[in-house]
């Protein structure tokens, strides 16, 4: 749904006052809590700059930039910016309508560094050109790709042929740069298939001796067209896809998506489902941090901790399998609740985990936290200041390690997180060691949340009884005509999500996991844009690397926890 009519100035909320007359075409308070500004592109930079700089607005976080295609509209594309203010807690959505023949907007890279890769993605997927962008190239697809795949008229069955000369390398990597004082510099590929990258991540670096003088990331090796596929499948069918975004904590992704669609439907999952979601999400967060730290430590030569961490993960997988029937890709969340109730011994199993996990955490703490080798190796490595990290769009544990206590669970509570007593771990040094410490403490805080949630686990259904949304219970489908009809309609027509849009964001294991969802009122999504937290984090990686050594690059990469599944989608 787009806003085309100009509202009279008296209806505008006071937030619109800082903008000069005529620059904002329409202001609307969306149901998802965002203030939606529709702006013509000639005023875009002015409006964005004011949003960032005016103290009463202070939007310091650029969460997302994406395109949306409305083929039936005269101005076919929307460029959508999602902004947030950490200080005030308010959220803005800025939309710029663009015509098909001239899809050009000024680039916001000068205001938020975070815009860099997000704008490249919008260019790649929709062909929207960002004037003034320093390096506007394709990002998720290959350079030899033709067309823009998320446009509605793009035929996904097309195949493009790659030749050997289409190898992708940054321009600077192919030039020889003899250095007067040293030997020639050397260009080296870190990845995409290397055990230390833990995923298909490729970083091209130029080395002077062992020092990295220039670096650039090449991503998209694990691009599986998540967003394009979602547009051809029903709302509920997107849930198994979300499992494959951040596959280390698949539960959190499914819950985040379900919450966003529930927001659009105006429903809420029953209390029992909410609490179970919290318990399993927090356990998934522990699992994710365990994998991240375990892998990071094993890269630094501390193999034993990897096994202790993976034992935690193994035990949580056992619980997830008992609940959901799958270990890695759980597909347990549903729009409106959960697929089915937890097993009878759920409470005992979780209590067992609550007992066993801290023991492993203590073991790792003893081995690593006070270990001088580890501290010497990680302290002062990969330092990023809080201000810088926020400008790059960082969220989650990596941002908190730089001293900014932004946690979606606290700043914008959802699923009843406001009722749980927990603290946000913060470190100030912003280095690899700080990121380790923050993650360790976060696991303990997650255990606190799980304990409280388990003590207050209510009884009742786990999925809404709204038959427009959730499948009726099987015994009714087998025996009642009406339930069978609802069942039939839901499977064949999908959930009738009202036309509109919503941006739902939750605290994923890596930071703010956002879903920008657009519905045209049909049974299938019109557009789903995922805001993966590590996409924003990874784009700062080359800048952090400059001047450091290769072993540092491995240590930093591990501590950022880049998951290729959600990075490339």
């Amino acid at each position, binding site marked *: 749904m787009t806003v085309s009519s100009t509202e009279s100035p008296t209806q505008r909320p006071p937030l619109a006052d800082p903008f000069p007359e005529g620059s904002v075409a329409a202001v609307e308070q969306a149901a998802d809590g965002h203030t939606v500004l529709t702006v013509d592109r000639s005023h875009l930079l002015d409006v964005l700059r004011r949003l960032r700089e005016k103290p009463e607005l202070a939007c310091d976080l650029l969460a997302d930039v994406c395109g949306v295609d409305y083929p039936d509209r005269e101005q076919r594309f929307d460029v959508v910016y999602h902004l947030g203010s950490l200080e005030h807690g308010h959220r803005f959505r800025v939309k710029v309508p663009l015509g098909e023949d001239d899809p050009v907007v000024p680039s916001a890279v000068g205001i938020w560094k975070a815009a860099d890769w997000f704008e490249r993605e919008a260019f790649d997927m929709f062909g929207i050109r960002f004037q003034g962008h320093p390096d506007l190239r394709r990002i998720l697809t290959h350079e030899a790709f033709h067309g823009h795949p998320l446009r509605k008229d793009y035929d996904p069955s097309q195949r493009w042929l790659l030749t050997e000369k289409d190898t992708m390398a940054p321009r600077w990597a192919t030039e020889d740069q003899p250095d007067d004082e040293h030997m020639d510099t050397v260009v080296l590929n870190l990845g995409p298939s290397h055990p230390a990258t833990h995923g298909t991540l490729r970083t091209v670096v130029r080395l002077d001796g062992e020092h990295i003088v220039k670096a650039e990331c090449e991503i998209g090796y694990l691009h599986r067209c998540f967003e394009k596929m979602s547009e051809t499948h029903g709302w509920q069918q997107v849930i198994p896809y979300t499992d494959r975004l951040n596959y280390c904590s698949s539960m959190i992704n499914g819950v985040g998506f379900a919450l966003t669609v529930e927001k659009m439907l105006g429903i809420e999952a029953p209390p029992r489902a909410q609490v179970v979601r919290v318990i399993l999400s927090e356990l998934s967060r522990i699992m994710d941090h365990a994998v991240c730290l375990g892998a990071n430590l094993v890269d630094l030569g501390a193999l034993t901790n990897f096994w202790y961490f993976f034992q935690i993960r*193994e035990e949580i997988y056992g619980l997830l399998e008992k609940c959901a029937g799958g270990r890695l890709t759980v597909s347990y969340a549903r729009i409106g609740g959960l697929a089915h109730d937890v097993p009878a011994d759920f409470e005992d199993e979780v209590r067992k985990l609550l007992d066993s996990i801290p023991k492993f955490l203590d073991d790792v703490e003893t081995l690593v936290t006070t270990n001088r080798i580890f501290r010497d190796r990680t302290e002062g490595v990969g330092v990023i200041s809080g201000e810088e990290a926020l400008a790059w769009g960082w969220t989650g544990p990596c941002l908190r390690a730089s001293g900014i206590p932004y946690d979606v669970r606290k700043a914008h509570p959802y699923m009843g997180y406001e009722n749980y007593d927990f*603290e946000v771990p913060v*470190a100030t040094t912003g280095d690899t060691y700080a990121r380790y410490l923050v993650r360790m403490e976060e696991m303990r805080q997650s255990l606190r949340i799980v304990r409280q949630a388990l003590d207050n686990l209510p009884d009742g259904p786990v999925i809404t009884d709204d038959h427009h949304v959730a499948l009726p219970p099987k015994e009714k489908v087998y025996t009642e005509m009406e339930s069978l009809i609802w069942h039939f309609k839901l499977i064949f027509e999908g959930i009738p999500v009202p036309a509109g849009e919503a941006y739902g964001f939750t605290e994923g294991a890596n930071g703010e996991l956002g879903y920008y969802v657009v519905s045209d009122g049909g049974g299938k999504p019109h557009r789903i844009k995922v805001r993966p937290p590590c996409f924003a984090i990874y784009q700062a990686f080359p800048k952090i690397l400059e001047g450091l050594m290769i072993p540092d690059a491995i240590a930093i990469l591990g501590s950022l926890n880049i998951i290729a599944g959600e990075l490339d989608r």
Partner: protein
Amino acid sequence: MKNVATVNVDRGPIPWTERIYLGPIVRGLGVTLRHFLRNVFGKRDVATIEWPEVKRQYSERLRGRHILTTKDDGSLRCVACYMCETACPANCITIVAEEDPEAPVEWEKRPLLYEIDLLRCVFCGFCVDACPKEAIIMSRQHEMAFSERSEAVVGIEELRQKGPIEDEDLGYRPYF
């Protein structure tokens, strides 16, 4: 920013007790030694399973290979309604329907062809949720290896239940 409860995890400069390295190394060796001894004598911490001799016991919700259930007379319960094919997020089910000549009522359908491409299947269980006849359920069989891609496309004969339903290694199905 809203006032949030934070806990600072900074550890400051390395104190001399850690700088000399002796204390932490002894404590660290203590941890590994404890695990070692417990694993050798107590066998309490061992997380690994000696697969394939020992198999992990999964719950009855595990989503493994599908089973097409049959009625008492041995014919498929499936009525070729296409619900599972529609609900499948991976588009791995292919159904071709035909009229069932043995049906007691007129115009009853049955599947002429029912194929699942197990390499495309993501084992999400949506087909089980979608089925209004309990005609497709899942087993706990999850070790599937094929030497050719075409072998992974399984039809009615491979999928149908072999004997009494109790003898199958039942996994995800309604009520579980």
